[in-house]
């Protein structure tokens, strides 16, 4: 398996990364950012939308800060999984990602920006030729989507990264930088419901870090992941829940987010708010689980059948919320 050739740029600071990005943009050269490469390189080896230039963030020192409420884009997943200073929910979640070896290379930024996946797409070049390609990598043929046919516009490839769900449940803010300046937005607004564009990143823009609200440490949570094997396998469904218990032991805040079920991860804030208002322990857990199940629409492009994944959303949500079965609503 050989990658198509590309030119690698290795900036050592954020500024010089931005300069290179700006120059490439001026020359109209396509490029990709590369962090740990655990997602990008397999795709390149499969000749999936590879670019002539690649800018590596490996040496950009500003991006590796890891503090309780500040997570740099270049923080390795294994560091997150074993760190004492990061939120327990993030520690738990990152510990389920891929395998130790992949986590040692894989980064938070790469995980957030993970390319969407689809079994008609994540295949070798010859294979894709044999099905006459698909929109996401159509090699100029204008091919149809193989999952939902007769529409060659929208790609419904699945976003199968874990961290986003937990970060959404913790109400994270994402911080971006581009040659034109930087901006910040709630993580929930970062993703775009299209398997090809995936997120709001503009050409030349990158993720620098994520921050959590100051009261993050008051929130507890759980992440439930559906997959076939205990290691390696991408999530087939993921549910993160975070909650805040007040001084009286009552439920004071609740967020639930799902991932690996659609082309974006999703924060189910309205459902959670509704449930929290009249929180009644087990009953609420069950009804919220049903509501979340109804809210997601998986399609058939990952290993497990979508009907099963959807059914499991209820079980996962229930299990994630299990600690709240005996909790009451705060008034």
């Amino acid at each position, binding site marked *: *398996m*050989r990658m198509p*050739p590309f030119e690698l740029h290795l900036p050592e600071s954020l500024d010089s990364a931005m300069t290179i990005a700006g120059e490439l943009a001026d020359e109209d050269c396509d490029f990709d950012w590369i962090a740990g490469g655990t997602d990008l390189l397999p795709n390149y080896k499969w000749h999936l939308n590879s670019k002539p230039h690649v800018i590596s963030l490996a040496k950009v020192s500003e991006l590796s800060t890891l503090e309780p409420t500040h997570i740099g884009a270049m923080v390795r997943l294994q560091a997150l999984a074993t760190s004492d200073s990061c939120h327990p929910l993030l520690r738990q979640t990152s510990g389920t990602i891929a*395998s130790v070896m992949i986590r040692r290379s894989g980064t938070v930024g790469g995980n957030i920006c993970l390319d969407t996946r689809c*079994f*008609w797409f994540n*295949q*070798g070049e*010859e*294979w894709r*030729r*044999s*099905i006459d390609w698909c929109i996401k990598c159509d090699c100029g043929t204008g091919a149809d989507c*193989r999952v939902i046919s007769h529409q060659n516009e929208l790609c419904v490839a699945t976003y199968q990264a874990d961290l986003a769900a937990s970060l959404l449940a913790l109400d994270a803010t994402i911080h971006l930088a581009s040659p034109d300046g930087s901006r910040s937005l709630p993580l929930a607004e970062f993703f775009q419901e299209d398997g090809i564009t995936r997120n709001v990143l503009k050409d030349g823009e990158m993720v620098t870090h994520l921050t959590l609200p100051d009261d993050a440490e008051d929130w507890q949570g759980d992440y439930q992941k*559906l997959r*076939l*094997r*205990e*290691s*390696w*396998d991408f999530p087939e469904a993921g549910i993160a829940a975070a909650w805040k218990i007040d001084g009286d032991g009552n439920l004071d805040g609740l967020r639930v987010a799902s991932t690996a079920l659609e082309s974006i991860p999703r924060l189910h804030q309205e459902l959670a708010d509704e449930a929290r208002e009249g929180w009644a322990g087990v009953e609420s857990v069950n009804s919220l689980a049903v509501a979340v199940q109804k809210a997601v629409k998986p399609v058939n492009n990952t*290993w*497990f*059948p979508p*009907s*099963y994944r959807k*059914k*499991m959303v209820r*079980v996962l949500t229930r299990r994630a919320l299990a600690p709240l079965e005996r909790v009451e609503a705060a008034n």
Partner: protein
Amino acid sequence: MSDDDEMVGYKQQPGKLPFARPGSGGSEKFSELRDESRIPESQGGTLAQPQGANRHDSLITGAAIGRRTPMVDSRWKVMGQAKYGDDIRLPGELFGRILRSPHHYARIRSIDTSAAEALPGVVAVSTGSEAPACFGVLPVTKDEHAMAQEKVRHVGDLVACVAAEDELTALEALRLIEVDYEVLDAVHDMRDGLKDAEEPIHDRGKYHIGDSNVQKRVFQEFGDISGMRDSAVATHTSDWYFAGANHGFTEPHAVAAHWEPNGRLTLYTPQQVPHYVHRALADVLDIPMHQINVYRTAVGGGFGGKSDPFPHEMCAAILARKSGRPVRITFDRDEVFYVNRGRHPSRLGMVIHADSQGRLCGMETDALLDGGAFASFGHVTTYYNGVLHTAPYEIGGFHYTGTRVWTNKPASGAMRGHGAVNSRCAVEVGIDDVCEQLSVDPIDFRLANLLPPMSRTITGFRITSIGMRECLERVRRASDWDDRFRKLPLGHGLGIGCGFFISGSALPIHWEPNKFPHATVHLKVDMDGGVTVHTGAAEIGQGSDTVVALAVAEVLGLPLDMIRIRSRESDTSPVDLGSYSSRVTFMNCNAAISAAMEIRQELLDATSMITGAPTERLVIGDRRIFSKDDPAVGVSYLEALQKAQEDRGALASSGAYRTPPMGRTHKGAAAGLAPAYSFSAYVAEVKVDVETGQTSVLKVWAAHDCGKALNPLAVEGQMIGSIHMGMGQVLSEEMRYGRSGNLLNADLLDYKIPTVHEMPEVTPIIVESNDPEGPFGAKEAGEGPLLPILPAICNAVYDAIGIRIHELPLAPALVHREIEKRCKELGIDDPLDLPSPDLEHSPLHHVLRERADEHSVRDLERKLDGERDQYHNGALFGLDATIPADEQDDSWTAVVLPDEQYLESPRLAGSAWLHVERRHQGGDA
């Protein structure tokens, strides 16, 4: 030389040695005492022999066998020094790549390679027209070519190949080859393969079966067929679907071809069966075999997936010849899946009958096998799916219809447990169900229905040693079975499964077994004292080099480091059939022992000459040969060797093994014949999450009868590895074909091999039944240990949730669906309220226990009594044990063709017999 005829001429001066004694280097002068605990009782030692004596007992020196021995080649591997297929580097080599078909089935109208040839850096391009000769692993079904001739038969089928200065250029060249295809109607569903087709995938001329895609069909009926249905009081019926599985070995296929300056071809390839490649190369290249040297590199796992001669091996040789330079081809993982040869996707109909005495009065199996686009080993697989479940149980009737069809998929072939795995799973699950119906314990049931040692199965296989009973008893004890089976809470279960496998196929594929040996081993012992073993047995990581070395070391009483194995090259190794059908230990060690016995005799004679002690009274200890009567009378191995080498130099010997004549004479009688069989019983403990359908295996108690563990470490390794592999097929592994017919998971992320996290805690239990013909009593441990894990897990899942699922893998979505279905049937909302099965023994339980006790005594007697009578399957049903059942009772039949009555309503695979072979169609056909 006696003193009388002393040599004239140069004479050594007494007391002065101008050169060292042969092999006298090193400071270790003293040998160790013979370890009595390793010498069998029958030879005067203290090693207990509960299973009686063996013909090789007198050769035991205590030097090697039975010790936990790391593989002799392990250091090369762990130090990164072993050279696997892709580690071969040759000066001036080119990179070869293969152009593969994007269509499932298509006719090639034309191929234009001119643009590819014109690309700078491309040295040679070749297409099918340059290699028209066909080949195939079985001489009866040669249907493969180096590259497509007129048609491509599956996505990934070979169309053309390119050799270039570097890989990227080769890949670019492939893009430049223009192929004009006419797409044909493809067959994806194996059931469609049974039907007549416009254009069958292959054309076998007058032997073609109708116009269908049936490649091979088998019909067998043995025993009391109508009686078995009449006397049944419990009947299990199931329709199974088994997804196809791939071997999933670590090393992808890789080959390097080099036409040496002397005009001979050396082909470097990680092969399990180098000899068949040797033959196929000669055919395809149209050169004599002596111009080819097949060099087997280290093999990074084979499991049956590297035992066919492969088209890419031919391509490398063709490109190397054309370019005049060495050519190397290494597969990407998807290409491994395109050559496949994995376990057949199958649809299996299983019927098991038990009578009022708790006897297995009948088995009716119908197996439809999806062969993919080529025959490969399929002819044999079609037999194995039936005949390999005619033991270890004594049965009243055996009805088998098996059919293998071609479909437009990568070819299925031989994979660890070849042909026996799926049907064994169905049989053992069926027995579990029958026991459930009879309210008896499934272990008791099995113990009361076993064939004894030295017996014949219903189809005439010769069972020699059988350790099945001990296997069952030991896993029962180890797993605390009696206290836990059917008593665990919902979602937690225990299950049993057994296995039976050949220890080497008695039928060599390429020649007559009665004329040529299956294995030949040469030994050379030179002045350094070390023993060089030349064998063609292919070391594929299973430890064949080690076990052959152990056998030789044992006979000669030498430490293992004095034995070196040369098993790589066809130029220096005597022909061996290769590493398949679990034949190497049995056949190669037997041959090695014969060769070592010759050397041994020469050493004893030499010692006798030196010491004057009679040869018959001499024994071999650790590097020392001495008199039994007075251990002080003796010489070191090296002294004896020096004496033996006088006048002639290096000692050389040759040993061979061939199976004794055996079996019956019906068509297909040879399939499944083996000089010995292995047996195994496993208990698995599982947890099933009833809300998600996810199954995990917690523990496995695995007992395997390998005859004699020449290397217990290797036997345990094989058992644990087999469990991992078999478990993959039960829980997660499948070659999944999508809506378009394409293989969706030709990679190791989505071909779901269990990881270390999924691995249960395994307790390996080695059972030694001491086979009378095996080397030091050994049989096999390479494939048999895989069989029982599938049914053990399936039965444990039943114990956990009370639902039988007849489909593998037991994917969570499937299990969950079945749980939902059951909840609906029972009107239960929450799956956590499902009932879990229990067991209340019926009166039959005592009948079985008594019979099992009697049989236990019977078995030991038969094992130890050399004068025993014949025992044919059928005695349990009241027939005379000494005569084959069908020769004494008319209601017992032995037929291999369906009659008209059967054809009125055949089963699925049996319906292949509705087609008439073209040569019998009459008219002009």
